[in-house]
C-alpha cells in the first residue's frame, strides 16, 4: 500500500514539491492514510485548539467546538454551523458594473454586467478572498458543499466523529 512521509505531503499541499515527485504521486496508487496525515499537518498550523473535522476550502475548516460543528477560518473567525452556508455570514463585494469588472478584465474580455456579476466573499476576520461566484444578478447564493459528516466518519473512515 502506498504511503508518504509527512514532510512530503506538507510540501505537496503547499505546492513546493518538485514536479517529478509530484507527477509520481499523481500517477501512483493513492495513499489511504492521506486524510489523517493531512489533518495532522493542518491542525499543527492553525492558531486555535478546536479539532478539525474536515477541511472545507483554502483557509476554511469544519471544526468541533464543544458540542457544535462549525465553519472556522484559520484566522479564528467563526462563521456558524456547517449545515448552513458560511457565505451568508461573510463579507461581500460585488463587481456589477463595467468599471469594477475592468479592474480584473480589461477590454472586451469582461462579462456584461447586465448579464452577470462577480461576487467576492471575504472572511470578515482577515479579509481573505475565500470564494467568488460568477452568476446572473439575482441568483441565490450557492451552497457549495455540505458534507455528510456522520456517514463519512462512521461508515467510510470507521472512526468516531
Amino acid at each position, binding site marked *: 500500500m502506498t504511503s508518504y512521509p509527512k514532510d512530503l505531503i506538507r510540501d505537496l499541499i503547499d505546492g513546493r514539491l518538485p514536479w517529478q515527485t509530484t507527477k509520481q504521486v499523481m500517477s501512483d496508487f493513492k495513499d489511504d492514510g492521506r486524510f489523517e496525515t493531512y489533518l495532522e499537518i493542518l491542525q499543527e498550523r492553525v492558531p486555535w485548539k478546536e479539532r478539525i473535522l474536515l477541511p472545507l476550502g483554502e483557509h476554511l475548516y469544519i471544526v468541533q467546538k464543544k458540542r457544535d460543528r462549525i465553519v472556522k477560518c484559520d484566522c479564528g473567525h467563526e462563521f456558524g454551523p456547517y449545515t448552513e452556508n458560511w*457565505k451568508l455570514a461573510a*463579507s461581500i*463585494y460585488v463587481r456589477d458594473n463595467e468599471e469594477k469588472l475592468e479592474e480584473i478584465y480589461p477590454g472586451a474580455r469582461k462579462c456584461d454586467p*447586465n448579464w*452577470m456579476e462577480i461576487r467576492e466573499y471575504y472572511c470578515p476576520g482577515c*479579509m481573505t478572498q475565500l470564494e467568488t461566484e460568477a452568476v*446572473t444578478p439575482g441568483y*441565490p447564493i450557492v451552497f457549495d458543499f455540505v458534507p455528510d459528516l456522520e456517514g463519512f466518519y462512521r*461508515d467510510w473512515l470507521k472512526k468516531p466523529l
Partner: protein
Amino acid sequence: MKATSAKKIRKIAPGRRGVGPGGLTLIEALKRNRQLFEQTGHYHGVKNLKLKADNYLRYESLHARLRSAVVNAREMSKKISASPGVREVGESVVALYTPEGDSVALSTGIMVHVHTLSRFIQWMIEHDYESDPGIAAGDVFANNDPFISDVHPPDLMNVAPIFYEGELIAWVGTVAHELEIGGVTGGANQSTTAERFGQGLTVSAEKVAVNDVIRRDFLVRAEMNLRTPIYYILDEKAMVAACIEVREKVIEIVAEHGVDYYKQAIRSIIEEGRRAHLERMRLLTVPGRYRAAAFCGHVFEGKVGSSGLSRNCIVHIPLDMTIDRDALMTIDYEGAGPKMWNPYNCPPAAMDGGFFVTLTQFIDFDGKVNDGCWFATKMILPPGSWANPMDNATSTSSAWASLMPGFGSLQRMISRSFYARGFREEVFLGQVNTPIMEGGGINQYGQRFGAQNLECAAEGSGARGIMDGIDCGYVGWNPESDMGNVEVWEMAIPILYLGRRIWRDSPGAGKYRGGATFSSLLLIHKTPVYNLVSTIHSDKVFDNQGMCGGYPGPTARFQYLSRNSNIRELIANRAPLPHIEGDPRSPDMQRMVQGEFETVDGVFLERPLRDGDLLQFFYNTGGGYGDPIERNPEATRVDLDKGIQSLELAARVYGVVAKFDPAAKLHSVDTEATRKAREQCRRDRAARAIPVKDWMAGQRSRLLNQDLGREVKEMYKDVFGFSERWSREFREFWKLPDDFTFKP
C-alpha cells in the same frame, strides 16, 4: 435515465435463434444483462473475480492485449485519415464492447464517445437490427444522429460486430470528428440552426459496409452533400480500417485463450471497473451534497446573415451532486431551462458523453477504465429541458457550449471532495468552452470548401490545487490535447497566420492561475468569399468559475476584424505587422493597420471575409484557485517575463509591484512594496465590503421590483415555468411571496 427499461425493447418472435451469446437474440441478451445487474448489483451477475484470483497474469495479459488492440487501431487509423482534425488533433477514439454494448476497453482520444457508442449499439439491439437490416460478420453500421446516440452530427461513428464461430461475441466502435458536415454554414458545429434541419448530413443508424467494403451509395451521398467530402470519406475509411484491425486482433486473442474464457473475462473486467470506481470514491471523496451553477450566453439580436435566430439567451446550467454512503454518485440537472430554439441543446447521449469523459479524467483514470463506472453512477436529466429535449427535431449542433460549463461544474465539485480528503494534487478546474472558427466558401485553390479550425483543442485549462493550470494544452473533450500545426490549418483553410501566441492576462486569476490560452491573428488569403461563423464561445457571461477565491477565466466572446486592410501594403513595405492583441483598449490590429476595424461580439454572421481582411480570434481558459494576493510573487515575475501577465494586472489583481528592465528584457519584483500593496488590498476590501445579510436585503428588493436585465429575467422566467422545485428553492432563498414570478 441511463438504463433503457425492459418494456421499451422491441418484442421478438418466440423460439427465434439469435446471433448473441448461447443462441440468444441480442434483445434477449441485453434484457438478461440488465436483469442480472438489477438482481445481483454486480455487472452481469459477476459476484467474484474468480479469473483474476485463479490466474492473475493470464487475466491481466488478456485485458492489456485488448486495450493494446484498440489503442493500436486508433493510431493506425489516424494515418489513413486526411483530416487535420483526426490526423493532427487526434479527434477519434476506438473501443471494444460486449455483445450487449458495454465498453470493455478503450483507446485515448475523444473518450466522450465511449458511451455514445454504447448507446448506439444498444439502440440497434433494442430496435431489432438483428432482424432488419440484419447483423453479420463484415457489416459496419454508422450513425451521427444525436437522438439515436451522439453529441452532434460532426461526430460520425462506426460500429462493427465481431463474430466467432457464428456467435456475436463483441462489437468494436470508433468515432471521428468531421471538420465539415454540410450544414447551413460551412464547417462542423453549426451555431445558427434552430432545429436539426440545417445541422448537416445526418446518418441515422445505417448499415454502410458489407463484407468489409464501404457501400458506394454511402460515399456518393457524402460527395454530393459536403463542401469538403475528402475529409469525411477518408475518415470513414480510417474508421472501417480500425474496426477490421480490432476485430482481427480480438479473434486472434480469442483463439488463443478460448472463447469461454474470453466471454467470462470481459464481464469480470467490467465488474472490476465498477468496483474500482466505488473504491476510489470512498478513498478520494466525501459523501454529501454539492451544488454549482454555470451559465452560457448567446447573442443573436441584430445579427445579419443566414440565421433565423433572433433572441439573445442565457443558458442556465445548475448542477446538484450527491455522494451517498454507498459511494453512489448522482448528478442532477434539475433547474435546467426548457429546450431552446437554438443549437445549444444536448441530447441525452451528449450528457452521457460529458459525464463519462469527466469520470475518466477524475475518478476512473487508470486500471480497468470501462463502462463499469457507468453502473456505479446515476444522472438525472429533466425531461423536456435543454439537457434532455425529448424531441428529435431539436438542434444540438453546438451542444458543447452547454456541456462544457455543465461538466466543468462537476470537475469543480469533485475537486472540493479531493480538497477535503487532502488529495490536492487532483484538484483541477479543468474545462471551459472552446470557441471555434467554422466556415466555408472558396478556398485558396479556387475550390468550394467547408472546414472547422480545431486549434481550440489545446487552450488553457483551469487552475490546479497545487499549481497553475495547463498553458495552451487542455480541452475537456479530448484529454490528449493538440492544437495542430499552423501550416496544416493554412493548407485546409484560406488563411495565413500572422501570429498564434499567448493571450496576455488571459488566465483566471488566483493563488494558482488558470492556464494561459492563446489567440490567432489571421490574414484571410486568396479567397473571394469566406463565410466565417464562430461557435461554442460564451457571449457576455463567464462560462466557468474559480475556486477558493480565484476568479473565472475571461469570456473570449469576441473577435477583432479589419476589413479592406492595408496589410498587403505593410508587408510589401516591410513595415511592422500585428501579431498579438497588444493593449486590449487599443489593439495592435487597430493601431498598426488601416482598415475598417470592429470588435465583433457573438457569432459572426455578417458579410463574408475576403483576401486581405484580418481576423483575430481568441480562445478560452479556466478559472483560478485561491486568493490572488496569496500568489507567490516569484511566479508572477516569471509570468511577466513570459508575456503571460502584464505589469498593470500584476499590480492590480495580484498586488505584485514589479518593474521591467528594458536592457535585460527581464522583470524584477519589489518584495517590500509588494507586501505593503497586499496589506493595502486587504484594507481596501474591508472598506468596500458589506455583510452578506445586508447585501441580501437590497437584492430582495431588487427582485421584488423586477429590476434585472431583460435576458436575465427571461432566463429566470423560463426556469420558473419549467422547474417547480428550482423556483420554490429560489423563492425560499430570497424569502419571496409564494406567488412571486418574473414578468416579461
